């Protein structure tokens, strides 16, 4: 069994008010390290056995059509064991 992970982030030029809200909450708790914060989504997809190249290609397609909106977001697909 392996896990295919799809991480989706807003494109850098798209305003991320949620990330900004997190960034401004951090110093209130004494965390002063953050210059900025961007918030994204992570999908964990479980498949039986090692993912085949065909499966990965399908996941790429799903990420492009459903899991992300290419107008405002980018994604990366990776495999975790």
């Amino acid at each position, binding site marked *: 069994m392996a896990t295919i992970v799809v991480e989706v982030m807003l494109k850098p030029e798209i305003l991320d008010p*949620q990330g900004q809200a997190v960034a401004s909450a951090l110093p209130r708790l004494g965390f002063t390290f953050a210059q900025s914060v961007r918030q994204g989504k992570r999908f964990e997809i479980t498949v039986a056995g090692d993912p085949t190249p065909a499966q990965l290609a399908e996941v790429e397609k799903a990420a492009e059509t459903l899991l992300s909106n290419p*107008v405002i977001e980018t994604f990366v697909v990776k495999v975790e064991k």
Partner: protein
Amino acid sequence: MRIGVVTFPGSLDDHSALRAIELAGGEPVSLFHGSTDLKEVQAVVLPGGFSYGDYLRCGAISRFSPIMESIIIAAEHGFPVLGICNGFQILCESHLLPGALTRNSDLHFICDDQKVAVENIKTPWTAGYTQGQEIVIPIKNGEGSFQCSDETLAELEAESRVVLRYVGKNPNGSRNSIAGISNKQGNVVGVMPHPEQAIEELTGPGDEGLIFFSSILKEMVGR
């Protein structure tokens, strides 16, 4: 004149839209997301609400519902479609309209009477307004900030496809204060504020929203 309104799981304003069509003198027809049957309507409204709980992204899951298959094909052939609020989000996710609606810049859910200018009266949904007419209709959303690439923005402006623009303070960080747009042909229109909630003095800030519905009825007769 049969105008359809689609009910998705989580639609809220479908009955308001049906009522607006009736008040404008049309025959409102309920359409269901799980069927591909457009029931011979001559135009369709995608109403506001929180279809599929706004899961994943607003409108992202509704976009793949059976009724949308029929609507996307019809819209590409000139069939008039109006998306209001969540309906606008569904039209963007369907790629019938460019851009996307993202979280309001101040993160607040906004519920207010909003002044907007009607900047494109060449669409079948806005033909009854006068160019530049300022109207007050309610706005109620958490993800109404219109975003798109610089090229798309330039194209929308150059082709006069901005249908509604916020007047005064930009409420949500939308690019160029855009509140509504159309596709190239003009048959598909998406607006963030709610014309169907401003159809009579008793229940809204006025009745200036009703013209969206009387416009489409008049336009369809003319065809």
